[in-house]
Every structure is written in C-alpha cells, then in structure tokens.
C-alpha cells in the first residue's frame, strides 16, 4: 500500500507530457487509503530570461516515499527544489506542501518543511551549537523542548565532537551534517535535501542513508543525488530530469529493468572449449546475444544477454549442470543504472 505510483516503469519520450488527471485520482484514492499526499507540484515552470530551466513538471510525493531526483548538471533539479522550498518564485505553476501553497501561504508551508540547500550553507562565524539553537528558535522551539531537540538531533547526525567549533573550520562532511541537522531539527513532514551525502566519506554516507531511511516512514522526502547507488539504497522512487523535463518516473527496480544488461548472466567456466561452450549457450531459449569477455588461463568468461524482459537464469544454470561445467563465477546483472541514465538523458546515443 505504501507505493501507489501512478506510472511505475513507464518511460517518457521527449515530446510526451505526463498526464495529470490520473495523478489527482491517485492522490484521491491514496488519500482514501490512508496515504496522504504531502507534496503536490503542478505544471511548475521556471524561466531565467530566455532560458527555461524547469519546463512544466508535475508530480506528487506521498508520506513514506523517498523520491530521488536524478539528472545531469543543469537539468533543473536544484531549481525545482528551490521552488518547492519557496526560495524561488516559479514563472508558472504551483507547489503545495501538505495542502498549503508555498507562494500564497508561505508561513504555513515552510513550517512543515525542512530544507537542505545546495552546498549546505550556514553562518560561518557560528558554532554548530549556536547555529542549531538559532534555527530551533526560528522554528518556534523554546526552552527545555529546544534543549531536548538539539541533543537528539546532534546525536542523530553525530556532531558531538565539533559542536563548539566555528563552522568555517569544519570539514566538508561535517558542514553537510550541520546542514542536515538544521533541516530535520523540527521534525518536519516534508524534507527537501539537495545532495545530502555530497562530500561525505563512505561511513558517513552510510550513516546519513540509514538516517534518511529511518525517517522515511512518517515523512515525504525528496532528495537529489548524482550517486546512482544511493538511489538503490535509499529511494523508493526515482525521477530522472533532463533539460527541465521529467524523463522518467519509476522505482529503482523499474529503472534497472530498463537497462540493456538487466538479467544478463556473467559466467566463468573452467576447463571447457570456448567455441563449443559458446554454441551450446547460444542454443538456449531467450538468449539474445553472448559477449566474449576473454580468457584467463583455463577459464573462459561470457556474458549471456537475454531478450528484453526475460530471465534466463534457470536455463543457464540447468545447462551448466547438464554439461557438468565447472563454474567459478555466476553473476546475475540487475542492471547498470549509469547506463540507463546515459541512455535516457542523452537521446543521441542509440538505445540498445
């Protein structure tokens, strides 16, 4: 019930527009089923003079969803997020946070929103302690409640060691964690995070992703990222934006399925004759193509690529069993997201 996604798995061509009537029905049904829609974007457009940075984007995000924004640099991800948070005024379209229009009811909308801007800005001359206290007060939290919230948040993002150092002396990773802390301080319903793990080391990345996943159940989270494995690790939904338009709105698995290498099987077999092996594999049902990946001593390596949408795992393993092949490697490819990304955002490249 958590994922009522209107158009999972569909890809959008450059000319196609996402139908929005369907979205409202889904939102209505979703509302009826108990999943509340927390972010509604309708026909959002932003033009900077002659340049259209965001071109008619429409989507909704519900409670429990973690939406990943992907896209090439300059695609319009940050601009969209700035409009959702209320920092930029759209040229056209509306943004609603929990039903409140960000432009017309800014105070109500911003109260329910936590925002980590691009680059995690903060007042450099303040310490994390002072800065978070400032944000907490601005968010209307006082006294004992403020102390409580501050210590909880500091623990969640692990800022204890740098709490009383000025922010300009902190490393990039800590600065980003300060930014994250100020966004989650007041426990908002909606979180907009612009590259939350940028500059963090692998351990810190893992911590932040765990934090996001834990918070995801009661909130609607929109995050942008360049790291495709983050999409698989954290997001329930992935949206690729290019040149200001939504190119695809799908789940991470849906994106994987679009990969040409989805369900491809890479095998290394020892002690067999290469050509004979090749021909045997070719005869299997559903095999589209077999790539030679080379020879290592007595081992031969192939990648068996199935027809689109098919799984040939059982056929290949059966075949190997029948012929009593000694397999030293058997790997089922889920799909390379960066290849999908490239295909969808650079249409000049041929689709395989």
């Amino acid at each position, binding site marked *: 019930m958590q994922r009522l996604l209107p158009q999972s798995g569909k890809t959008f061509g450059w000319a196609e527009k996402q139908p929005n009537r369907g979205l409202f029905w889904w939102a209505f049904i979703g509302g009826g089923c108990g999943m509340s829609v927390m972010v509604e974007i309708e026909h959002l457009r932003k033009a*900077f003079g002659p340049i259209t940075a965001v071109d008619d984007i429409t989507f909704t995000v519900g409670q429990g969803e973690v939406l990943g924004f992907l896209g090439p640099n300059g695609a319009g991800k940050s601009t969209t997020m*700035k409009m959702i*948070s*209320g*920092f*930029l*005024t759209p040229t056209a379209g509306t943004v609603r946070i929990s039903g409140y229009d960000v432009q017309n009811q*800014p*105070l*109500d909308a*911003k*109260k329910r*929103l936590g*925002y980590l*801007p*691009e*680059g995690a*800005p*903060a*007042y*450099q*001359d*303040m310490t994390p302690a002072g800065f978070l206290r*400032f*944000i907490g*007060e*601005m*968010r*209307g939290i006082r006294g004992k409640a403020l102390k409580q919230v501050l210590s909880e948040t500091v623990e969640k993002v692990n800022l204890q060691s740098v709490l009383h150092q*000025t922010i300009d002396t902190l490393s990039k990773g800590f600065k980003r964690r300060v930014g994250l802390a*100020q966004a989650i301080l007041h426990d908002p319903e909606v979180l907009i995070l612009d590259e939350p793990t940028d500059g963090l080391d692998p351990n810190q990345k893992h911590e932040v992703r765990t934090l996001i996943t834990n918070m995801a159940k009661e909130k609607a989270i929109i995050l942008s990222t360049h790291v495709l494995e983050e999409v698989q690790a954290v997001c329930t939904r992935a949206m690729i934006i290019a040149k200001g338009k939504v190119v695809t709105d799908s789940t991470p698995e849906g994106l994987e399925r679009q990969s040409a290498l989805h369900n491809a099987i890479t095998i290394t077999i020892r002690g067999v004759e290469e050509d004979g092996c090749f021909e045997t594999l070719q005869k299997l049902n559903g095999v589209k193509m077999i790539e030679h990946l080379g020879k290592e001593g007595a081992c031969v390596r192939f990648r068996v690529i199935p027809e689109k949408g098919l799984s040939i795992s059982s056929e290949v393993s059966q075949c190997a069993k029948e012929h009593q092949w000694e397999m030293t490697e058997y790997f089922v490819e889920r799909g390379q997201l960066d290849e999908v990304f490239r295909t969808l955002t650079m249409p000049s490249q041929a689709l395989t």
Partner: protein
Amino acid sequence: MAAIGIIFRREFAGYFSTPIAGVFLVIFLLLSGAFTFYLGNFFARGQADLVPFFDFHPWLYLVLIPALAMRLWAEERKNGTIELLLTLPITMGEAVVGKFLAAWCFTGLALALTFPIWVTVNMLGEPDNGVIVAGYVGSFLMAGGFLAIGSCMSALTKSQVIAFVVSVVVCLAFVLSGFPMVLDLFSGWAPSFLLNTLVSFSFLSHFQSITKGVLDLRDIFFFLSLIALWLFATATIIDMKKAE
C-alpha cells in the same frame, strides 16, 4: 514578530564574533575624537557645547556606515545563507527589520561609547545638556537613515564592494541634497515643487536643525519615514530577486 528578536540577537552577536566590531568601534571613536578636537577647534572655540563633535557625524557616517551595511544582504547572498533565511517560516519584513535593527543598535553602541566627550565638556564648562541629548538623538536617527539606504544597496548586489560604493554615492546625494552639486542635476528641467522637495531631503539641513537643540517632529518624521521607505525597498528588491 518573535522572529525579529531572534534575528536581531544573532546578527548583533555576529558583529562581535569577528573583528568587525572592534575595528569599527575603535575607528569611529578615534576619528570622531580627532575631528572634534583638531578639525573642529573644540578648545579654541571656547564654547561649552558639542557642535564641533556633531558637525562631523554626517561625514563619518558617510564612510563608515556603508561599510557596516554592505554586508547585511550581499554577504548572505554570497554565502548562500540567504537561501536558508528565506526558507524559514518568517516574513521578508521580519528578516529585513531584524537585520536593520541589529546594525542600528550597533551604531547606537558606537555613539554611546563617545560619552567621554560629553563628560569632558561637562567638566570644562556648563553646556546645555538638553541640546546635547537632542544631538545624540538626531545623530542616531541619521545613522538609521544611512543604514537603511545601505541595506537597500546591499540587497541589490552580491558584491560587497559595489554595495559599499553605491551606498556612499547615494548617501552623499542625500547629504548634499540641498546643495548645487545635486540640485543642478534637476534645476534645468524639474518643476519647482520637485526642487523644493529635493532640498527638503537634505540630511544636513534636518540634522543641523536637530543639533541646534530643536527636536522638531518634522525632522524626526523625515528620518523615520526615510528609514521605513528604504527598508520597504529592501524587502521589495529581495522579493524581486527571488522571482528573477
């Protein structure tokens, strides 16, 4: 409304967490003292008042206050913290007023720290302290005027240097408003009511009437409405830049 207080406190404390406070205060006190005693012939005059002291305030403010004001918004924009500030649940007005009040109070602190001169003149003679109080009030209001203009110029640009230079020029125009240097720009073509209005904008004429000891409501109203107008302009410019 509470947001104004929170922003005020953060900004005011911010002045003291960097060398800005120290440098500004020391230089202001040094210069105001030096101008009073050397350029103003404080002792040679032999009069128990602070006229030479107050006379230099417009010129001191002209240079020092744009330096204070230039970082109000340009720095926020440069650092990116403006994005943080404007996505918090506060109104633009609260943000603008909060920052302005912090800068104004800091200037007030600088003014207050000149009290040794007041003490000195009381030790040396019997000045009319009412006139001196009026002088301080007038100076404080005028400082607010300069600050409001500087705040608006700061909102126009990311560059603090541009904000500073443009602020100085605009403040100069207001200070010299009644003088030929500014009037001549308009005298050729402007109707006489406009020229009269321009003359009435002169900071110098309003300030001088206050330092003579007369707290005329019109002068106070002039400065307060000027501050209100430029702060409103600041908020409007920031709003416009959001849409840009």
